[in-house]
Structures are given as C-alpha cells and as structure tokens.
C-alpha cells in the first residue's frame, strides 16, 4: 500500500512541476547545484517520500519563502493531509495570499484546505474574496464549483456557475463544470450541450463525456443524439456520441455518428479507434465499415489487414480480398507472407477458388514462417473439399511436397477417403486443435480397422456443410462399425441438435444411454440431453437426466459441467 502511494506521489510531483513554472524534475537531477534555500525543499521531498511527514513539514514551511513556494505549498498540503492536519494550512496560506494575491495555486489550495477542514463558511468567504480580487478570472468559479461537485452539491455548483455567467458575461471557460453539474442534476440535454462546447477545446474529455452521459434515460437519448449530431460535425463530439452508443448497446448508431466526419487524420484515428472497440465485441460488419473509411484516408498495411479480416469475419470473402490487396504491401514479401497470405488463402478457399490460393502460397513459400505452411496447406485443401473435388484436394497437398503429405490437411483428406490408417498417423501428429479434430481422433483411436469409407463419407458431408446428409451417414456408419457405434451416434445427435431436429437427437441419445451405457459417450449423451431439455424450459426433465448422469458416472470428467447445468435447471445460479 505504501509503495503504491509513493508511486502515485511521484507521478503527482512530475505532473505539477510544469504548471508551477518550477522545473522540479530537472532540478532533482541536479540537487548538488541547488541554492541553500531550495535544499530544504528537496530534503522535504525526500522525507515525504519516506513517509516522514512530521519531519518534512518544517522544511516545506521553510521553503515557502523560496522560489519553490508553490511546490512547497503542495508538498505541505500532502503532508498535512496524511496526518489529518489540513486545518494547519490555513494560516500559512493567508500569509502567502497576502503576499501574492494573483497566484491561483495558493487560492485553490486554500479552498481545498478549508473544504477538508469542514469550514464551509470560511470556504465561501475565501471564494468570494478570490472572485473579488480577480474579477475577470474564471478560476475561482471553476475551483469552487469542482469542490461542490465532488461533494455531490450539484445545485450549489449550479448557483456558482450562474454567478460566473453574471460576473464574466460567459461560461465558455467553465463548460466542463457546467456539463458535470447538469449531468449530476439529471439535466441530460443541458449537460449534452455543455459537453459539446467543452469538447470543442478539450477533445481529451471524450471518455469523460461518455461516462457522464451514460446514465441518460432512453427517453432523453434522442435529444442527446441531436445535440452531438448537429452540424458542423466535430470529431470530439462525434467520438463521444459513438462511445455512448456503444455503451447504450447501439453500435450501428455509433458508426452513424462517426461516418459523416470529413476525411482527415483526426477522423481516421477516430474511425480506427471505434473499429478497435467493435473488433473486441465481434461487431465485424461495423468494424469493417469503420476501417474501410479509415483506409479511404490512409492506406496502410495494418489498416488493410484489419479491414480485410473484419470483412472475412463478417462473411464477405470478396470484400476481404478487395480491402487487403497485396499491392499495399509494396512488394514486401515477408509482410505478405506473414500478414496477407493467411487472409487471402482463407478468402479464396471460402470463395471456392483454391487454385488461386495454392498459387499464391507457392509464390511466397520461402518467406513463410515454420509451421505457417501447414496451416495454409490445410486452408487450400479445405477449399478443394468445399468444391467437392477430393482428387484436387489430394493433389494440392501432394504438390506442396513432403510437408503437405504429412500435414493436418492430409490427415483430414485421408479421413474423408476412409483411409483410417493414414488419418491415424497424420492427425495424431498434427499441430492444430479443434473440437472436430478431437472427435475424429477419438473415433479413429478406438477403431482397429484401417479402412472405413462410410465414416469418411459422413465427415466429408459435414465438411461440405451438408448437415442432414452427415447425420444420416453417421447413423449408417454406426450400424456398420459397432466398435465406435456410440461415438458415431453421438456425432449424429450433435448434428441433429445443431439443426434443431430435437426429436431425432433425443432418439439417438436414448439409444446410446440404453444400448451403450458403459461407453464414454453415455454420460456425454445424457449431459447433452439434459442441457437441451433445460434450454427448452423442461427443468424437471433436465434435472432427472443430469442427476442420473452425475450419480451414475461420478468419475466422468463431464460431471462439473453437469453440475453447472443442474444448478441452472434448478435456478440455483443466475442465467448469464
């Protein structure tokens, strides 16, 4: 705790030095050259950093008479606060202010000290005196309003801001305080107006604005939108609105707020930043739109890859190729191999253009990192599988040489062709991991035969996206291969369940539980059965199966999952 405090303290010291006009950080590095009167100040800083506040205080006080007075006062304020003696600041502050009534830091610290001491009447008097002595300055109003806002006294802060308007003729230097006051009072429309003004000169307040306006009730949101969307389109206000829309669960509206910005570097940065949030939330279509706009301003390889990936993830392979053309890499073969090739191969395979993908991969073969080739080969072979051309898929792998022949893709192709012997050897030594691979490995490990064309056909149908055909073929294969019957039936049930063909899935789970109750698939079938019933609202039916599964197969690795399902079915834990 103490260490953390020190860290914060040191940051504070660095932060205040430029404002005070006294280069502490530079001077700290040259303490030996400091004059004797500022030595006390440095010594005080050391003592403060060591937590020796009592010892630091007299030295800080001594330094109040030196050029380091402003920073010495801030040090004194921190030390007194640590000891709970903030009241003790008041007397030296009176002296300092008498000597230098224009110094804003002295006045600000005075307000804070009186606030800490709970001397509300004196606090008000100090504010009045400051406003009187500096009639054209917004600082007294700003600092006092901030203190009131910190105490949740938004009505009182409002009164001060009103007085500032009367005294100064404007609140243009108090827009942040005005915005916070209005938000605290639930005056969302007025707050939004003030935030828009504040953001004109301080666009770093984007997040603060979005945070303050996040609780805006839905009934007021349309008006808040209007304020931020009013022309001219400014980057700060549009970014704040985009953040708000994301928080309100309307990412499409967030993009609408940003897309009209004129293309320039600030807008491009706003688009790219917005896309990052959309990417993190898997809003790929919106991320793509934002990145495409950013690309319109500046076409960098990084942006193009992000845009292409977003398009691909949004299901638009054609756009992925268009947004991330190889030409953007400026002939940097290593960059192409590392960043563009995986995206292009994936897009081309999805478009049923595996030949082009194959050509591309071959062209950059020597720039590929170890292990990358195997993944690309699999992608290409996958493309051939999607076209249903197993011969070409096989040929594609063979053409890539020995590595292709021993790749994961070769293992999959062997499986699709029913060649279990080859599939067993290739998939076991593979580098990828996926649920499909786990199922396939589990299946072939339990089969003693080297050939099973019916199983291969079923997996191929699944790879081609023919779920209904795959489910039927898994059942047919189950009847032909009793050694893995339960596993094939389970796969068929899973495919049926994913197609919402629940009665077929239940029939298959029933068969497994009744006929193959000693296989590892029996607890899994019962777990999946219970889960399906729970999702359909049949809590009692789900509980029966889940309880049976837990008590019958207590050693199963699936028991923790079954317990969680049971708790959800019984309402013992909230649904996420």
């Amino acid at each position, binding site marked *: 705790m103490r260490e953390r405090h020190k860290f914060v303290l040191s940051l504070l010291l660095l932060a205040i030095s430029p404002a005070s006009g006294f280069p502490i950080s530079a001077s700290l590095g040259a303490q030996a050259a400091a004059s004797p009167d500022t030595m006390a100040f440095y010594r005080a800083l050391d003592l403060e950093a060591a937590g020796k506040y009592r010892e630091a205080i007299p030295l800080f006080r001594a330094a109040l008479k030196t050029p380091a007075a402003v920073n010495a006062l801030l040090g004194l304020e921190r030390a007194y606060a640590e000891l709970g003696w903030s009241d003790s600041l008041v007397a030296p502050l009176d002296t300092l202010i008498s000597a230098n009534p224009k110094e804003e830091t002295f006045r600000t610290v005075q307000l804070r000290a009186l606030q800490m001491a709970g001397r509300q009447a004196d606090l008000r008097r100090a504010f009045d005196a400051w406003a009187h002595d500096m009639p054209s300055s917004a600082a007294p109003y700003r600092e006092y309003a901030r203190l009131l806002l910190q105490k949740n*006294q938004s009505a009182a802060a409002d009164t001060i801001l009103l007085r500032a308007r009367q005294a100064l003729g404007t609140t243009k230097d108090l827009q942040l305080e005005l915005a916070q006051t209005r938000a605290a009072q639930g005056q969302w429309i007025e707050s939004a107006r003030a935030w828009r003004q504040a953001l004109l000169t301080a666009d770093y307040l984007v997040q603060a604005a979005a945070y303050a306006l996040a609780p805006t009730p839905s009934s007021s949101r349309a008006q808040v939108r209007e304020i931020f969307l009013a022309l001219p389109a400014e980057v700060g206000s549009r970014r704040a609105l985009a953040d708000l829309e994301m928080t309100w669960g309307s990412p499409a509206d967030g993009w609408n707020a940003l897309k009209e910005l004129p293309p320039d570097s600030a807008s491009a940065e706003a688009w790219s930043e917005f896309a990052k949030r959309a990417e993190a939330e898997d809003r790929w279509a919106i991320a793509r739109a934002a990145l495409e706009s950013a690309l319109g301003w500046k076409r960098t390889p990084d942006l193009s890859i992000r845009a292409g990936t977003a398009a691909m993830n949004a299901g638009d392979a054609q756009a992925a190729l268009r947004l991330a053309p190889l030409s953007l890499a400026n002939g940097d073969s290593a960059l192409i191999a590392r960043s563009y090739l995986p995206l292009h191969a994936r897009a081309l395979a999805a478009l049923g253009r595996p030949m082009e993908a194959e050509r591309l991969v071959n062209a950059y073969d020597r720039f590929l990192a170890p292990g990358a080739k195997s993944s690309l080969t699999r992608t290409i072979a996958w493309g051939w599988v999607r076209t249903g051309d197993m011969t070409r898929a096989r040929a594609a792998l063979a053409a890539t040489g020995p590595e292709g022949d021993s790749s994961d893709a070769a293992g999959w192709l062997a499986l699709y062709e029913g060649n279990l012997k080859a599939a067993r050897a290739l998939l076991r030594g593979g580098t990828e991991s996926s649920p499909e691979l786990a199922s396939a490995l589990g299946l072939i490990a339990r089969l003693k035969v080297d050939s099973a064309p019916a199983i291969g056909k079923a997996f191929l149908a699944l790879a081609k996206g023919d779920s209904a055909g795959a489910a039927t073929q898994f059942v047919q294969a189950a009847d032909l291969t009793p050694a893995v019957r339960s596993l094939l039936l389970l796969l068929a049930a899973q495919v049926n369940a994913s197609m919402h063909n629940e009665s077929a899935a239940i029939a298959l789970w029933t068969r497994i539980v009744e006929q193959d109750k000693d296989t590892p698939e029996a607890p899994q079938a019962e777990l999946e059965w219970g889960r399906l019933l729970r999702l359909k609202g049949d809590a009692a039916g789900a509980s029966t199966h889940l309880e049976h599964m837990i008590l019958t197969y207590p050693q199963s690795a699936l028991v923790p999952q079954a317990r969680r399902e049971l708790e959800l079915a019984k*309402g013992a834990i*909230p649904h996420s």
Partner: protein
Amino acid sequence: MPSRSIHPLRRGALIVALMAALVPVRGVLAQRLLVPMDDAQQNHLKAYGLTYAAIKAGASAEWLLNYRGGAFLLADTPELRRQAGLAGITTEPVDNARLSQLRAEIAANNMEAVPLEKAPKVAVYTPPDALPWDDAVTLALKYAGIEYTPIYDDDVERGDLSKYDWLHLHHEDFTGQLNKFYLSYRDAPWFIDLLQKNSAAAKRLGFANIPGLKKDVAEKIREFVERGGFLFAMCGATETLELALAGRSVDIAQSFIDGTPMDPDADRKMDWKRTFAFRDAHLEQSPFVNAMSDIDGHQVNVPGRRQPLGTFTLFNFSAKFDPVPSMLVQDHRAVVNDFYGVTTSFTKAVLKPGVTILANEEGAPWVKYIHGDYGKGTWTYYGGHDPEDPQHAIGNPPTDLSLFKSSPGYRLILNNVLFPAAKKKPLKT
C-alpha cells in the same frame, strides 16, 4: 417454508426407523458423515445446504466449531450421500473409532460440537419485482438450496413475521428515501416503477407517504427481534433500519420523497434507545449528498469522502464459552477482502456498548461485521453488498456463485442462516 415441528423423541424414533429401512439397501453405512470445511472441501457453500437439508429431514447434525474450518457432522444416510454427490460436496465417512478421536480432539482444544436441531424458517424481505441489483443472501440461499419465503411490506404489516425464525434484510432503505436514488435515477424506468409501487403500498396500508410505511415496517422488525427472532441485515438495510428506529418520531426524510425537508433539528431528536447497534450517529442533512449518516465508514457514493477497500479480519472466539459469535465467524479464511455497499462498514465511534465485533479492518475507524442480543432475539449486521463483487454497481449482472463455491465472504452469510438451528446450551460462565 414452514416446517412441521416434531417432538425430539418422536423425531429420534423416526430417524432410527428411517436408518434401519435404508441400511440394507446400500450396505453398511458409516456411523457419521463428516463434511470438512477447510481447504479439503470442494464446495463450501453447498455444504451449508446439505446440513440444512439434514436438519430439515430430522437427521442428526452437529456443527464442529473451529474443527477443520467449522466442519459439520451429519448422519450418514443414503439421501445425504446422494445430495453430496450431486452437488460435489466433499464428505468423509467417520466410524466409531474415528468419532471418538474427533470428540477427544474437540474436548481438548478451543473447539466445540454444537447440535443443530431445527431448520429455521427463513424469510427474506425483498420487493416482489426484480430490481437492477442482486441480493447476496438470496443468491447464497438459492445456490446452497436453502428454502426461503420472500416477504414484503404487505406481509410485514399483516403480522406475518411471526411465522418465521430468521429474517434477512438487504438493500432496503427504511428511511423511505429509496436510497436517494432520486438524485441519479429519477428518470430511470425501474426507479419510476419503484417509486409508484412504494407510494401505492403506503397509501394502501394507510400511511401518508413511503417514509411513514417504512418506519412502521422497521418497528415491526424491531418487535420481531424483541420477541425472539433472528435478524440478519446487509448493505444499506443495516444503517437505515437503525435510522428509521431512532427517527420514528422525527422527519428524517428529504423533501423529494415526502414533500417536506428534513427536520433541521433531527439529529438532536433521534431516540437511540430504540436501536439495536448504534447511538449518537449524525444524519446527512443535504438532500444532494448520497449518504444517510456517518454510520457508514466508507461512504462509497460520496466522492469526497469515499474510502478505499482493504481487508477485514475475523475475530477468534472461545468456542466453548462464546458459541454464538464462534458460529458466526466459522470460515476457512481469517482475512477476507472487503467489498462496497450502500453501507460498507460501521464507524466504531457510533457503536453501542455491548455490541460484539465479529470482524474489523485493522487500524481503520470502522468495523465490518457485528452482532448483538435484543430482547429475546439477536441481530447481526454485515456491511457491503456482494462479497464477490466488491464494486457492484446498479445494473451489474448477479454473481454466479458456481464460480465462487468456496467464497469466505459468502460463508459468513450462511453461518447466519444455520446458527439459529443450534441447540441452546446453558452458558458456562
């Protein structure tokens, strides 16, 4: 749910008959089933539910204070084994020889075996509509599988508290100011709905406004404890219940809720003789400051006063001489991470003499967990909102306790549910 009371002798005969009927089915069962509550336990929270189920079924149950984290010793029945297996609760069979060793160890150390006799009838005071915050006790009871009855103002006013042994309060504001949410959420649909329903309830039940209704509910809760009820409160209910009791004859509500400002002399007029835990606290006079009084040490919703979270330490009591506080602090951790609530902690300076401090934060001017007797009953206050969601904010999703099966903070809640089941023993001092 109310359970039928059975004469102890009859209950014993029933258990023997039940055991005799069940033993041949599953073979020879051990004499007892030990439910360890130290780090060997896989699901501490469900273990309380198992024990509650044992007591409810009339099976023998003992709470072994300070033994293996506050273990439970239950009758070894097929049904309890089944429930333990389903929930993943760690149990250990204990035969007669090991039972003798165990009892000898308890006798020789700061430990005690407390028989648990009757499953308490549990009521949770909670509004019937879902609100955008969770309730740690409801979550814990649901997860552990302990039955409870939700009750609210109509039930309390009808006199239904007398049907229950144990009452839990959580987020309610008994000063009737709806936690001053008006300041930030007056346009939120849930708040508008809350305000309308509470106003309608006040009118229906014959009160001028919400503060009037809530103060009367507070008074009935005080009477419930006085007559022998067990009260457990968390979060803002602790502080506001006390303010409502002390301020029964004073206008302590701000104008936004009852149309009149707080009595400027309210502080002086508070009658602290009527309260359970606190005295001489000062009311927050400003309608714009989201705090009720200086009872709470952390003041989470007041930016200038908000105190950081630390950890709190559970006190160690003599199990043989102070069994009640010992039961309330049974845990497998002595130091627990703190968590915020509308009321997070209790300032030491306003505690009444005689209040038992169960947990505090070392060096801080506040305590976390307190307990005391009142009339024939007892009360326990636990500051904070959700032990596993230290910064819980309005609108946050409820905590999934299956991810916190061994939460030491939640254990303290469940200790409170079980301790009313303990058989009262004459004090040894």
